């Protein structure tokens, strides 16, 4: 049970769910949540490789970095979503398509 493959499978599932969320959710916050899932799957990967793949402490350090990065990212992204709401009165990302043409 305690093998790399299991961890990686969980990580893949997490990544795929995150990606699915990012691509399909209309709600901006939900998209953000998808991103968090992707980041966490990456973290899981780091830790799994630290445990089995010989990355050792480097994996731990990277995981910590990712957590910090995710926090910062969440803050910035939420600020962007607030701004989008202020400008468009919605957080539906489909309607925010002013870049078109």
């Amino acid at each position, binding site marked *: 049970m305690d093998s790399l493959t299991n961890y990686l499978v969980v990580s893949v599932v997490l990544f795929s769910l995150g990606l699915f969320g990012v*691509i399909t959710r209309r709600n901006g916050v939900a*998209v953000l949540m998808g991103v968090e899932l992707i980041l966490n799957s990456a973290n899981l990967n780091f830790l799994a490789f630290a445990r089995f793949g010989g990355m050792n402490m480097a994996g731990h350090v990277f995981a910590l970095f990712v957590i910090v990065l995710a926090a910062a990212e969440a803050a910035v992204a939420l600020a962007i979503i607030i701004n989008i709401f202020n400008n468009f009165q919605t957080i539906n*990302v489909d309607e925010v398509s002013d870049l078109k*043409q």
Partner: protein
Amino acid sequence: MITGNIITDFSLLILFLPLAAFTINIIVGKRLPRQGDWVSIGAILITLVLSLSMLLNMFMNWDSDFSHEAKFTWIDLGAFKIELGFWVDNITIVMLVVVSLISSMTHIFSLEYLKGDVRYSRYYAYLGLFTFSMNGIVLANNLISLYVFWELVGVSSYLLIAHWFEKPSAAAAGKKAFLTNRVGDIGFFIGIMLMFTAIGSFNFQEVFSGVSQGLIGGSLLTLAGVGLFMGAVGKSSQFPLHIWLPDAMEGPTPVSALMHAATMVAAGVYLTVRLFPLFSSDALLIIAYVGGFTAFFAASIAITQNDIKKVLAYSTVSQLGYMILAVGVGNYIAAFFHLLTHAMFKACLFYGSGSVIHAMHHSLHELDDHKTDPQDMRNMGGFKSKMPITYWTMTIATLAISGVPFFSGFLSKDAILAGSLGFAQHYPQHFLLPVFGFGAAAITAFYMFRLIFMTFHGESKMPKVFKRIHESPRVMTFPLMLLSGLSIFIFYTLPYFNPLSDHGWFTELILAGDSVVPGNPTAHEIGEGVHHAHYTAMALSLLVAGLGIGLSYLMYIKKKLSAEAWAKKMGFMYKLSFNKYYFDENYDRFLYQPFLKLSRAVAYVDWDLYDKYFINGFGRITKWLSFLTGRIDYDGLDQSIVDGLGRSVQGFGKQLKQVQTGRLQNYMLFALVGVIIILVIQTI
């Protein structure tokens, strides 16, 4: 004693002072006080003083071999080199004096004659231009600058003949003079080019030495000589180009005296005298015949003319023929001698006629008569009492031209006649030459006295006009007196006093040079022949002159012989002579009209055929071709390829634009698809 450098300076001044006067008068003449005539007169008088000082220097040196050359390189292209410069010898000096003297007299005479003329300052300017170009001819040491000045003389002649260009006849006469001269000048230029091609130099001395070395000879030399002589035929108005000179009398009379009697027409003679050494014997024979025939033929026209200036004009042609005849028979120093004496007495005669015409003109003007011709001798008569100075001076000049002893014409004419007689004694087959000479001498004496008798003697034909005739003012009579004085033998025979022999400073200072053509007789041989014939010629010339004068006296004073009856008796001959042998008419019929027809035919071919069909056809084809290529370019190339490229880019862009949805998640999906594709490719 004047040294070489000073002679160069003097020559430069003599050449360029009249040009300066021309430049000043043509630009600002009208605004100067007295319309600038004093500028021209000052310049010409200084020129005269300089020429006289050169003459004085010649007398002081008493050196028949004197010559001075100054030259500079004008064009130097290695093999092709042209040097311009002066050649001053005794002939040049005498000629300079003649030109500047007659020119000065003309300037002075014109003060009165041209008074109040509309183009007074321009007239004086042109006189300056003429004097400049004539002195240029005289001073030239090479053919090319001689030719340039030759043409300049032609131009100034044209300008002065057509001075009163409001009159159509004057404008036509100027044009005729210019164009007739062109015919001669073409030959002249061919001659120059032949010489240059053979010898490679324009310089007289180099040309002479080239000829003597045999660089050019045979028929080519004859051709070149005849070519050069053609220039003289044009300018000196010899048969068959004599037609312009009588018409040139349309110009103001002082101009006629200066250019068409004394100097410009003498340029042709001067040219043949200058170039005498290079004429081959064949060329000289042609020259002699042209001259002799012209002398006789022009004299025979002068008999019947009634216009006082026309008589003098034909007389000039005849006298120039004399000079050319003398050159032809080898006695070219006599030709130059006659040029000198003729310049004096013929200018005097022209001034005299000018004085008479002036008086007639004023008288007719007062009577408000604009129909009577002031130049027609039939309207004159008895002027002797009214115009004594004009009468006496003209009589002296007439005695001189008729070849009466004690006057200059006798000496020079005698020399020419002796030359032609000597030539005929040596070559009896050319007996016509002296016949022409003596015949012309008799006729000359006749018609010149006819002129004097008709103008000054007998009854006045128009009493009303006669009453108002008066002597011309001092500025007009002064040149008359001076020039008639110079028609007396003594000025040419000094320091000797023998009126029957031309032996004097002229014959001692100006010696004939040998011909450089191998085989031609030397100056000594020619001189022998002349000497041999001298007394016979003198006796004969006295006889024919006496005959002419006597006949004229009988006809016009004693009225023993009726001129009208004789004219009727000689009906055909009279008509021929009176109508100048129909030369103008025949030239018109056989030269100008066919030429005009030819020109029109050529113009027709050029305009109506060539231009219309060929040139315009070309245009049309080009237009059509351009249209075609335009279509290919625009419709084919531009529309399909150039615009097609743009259109397809545009269309592709339109299609591609669809991808830009603006939806964030679409982009992400694309990125994901891209990543997957890359991964798939990498795995494969």
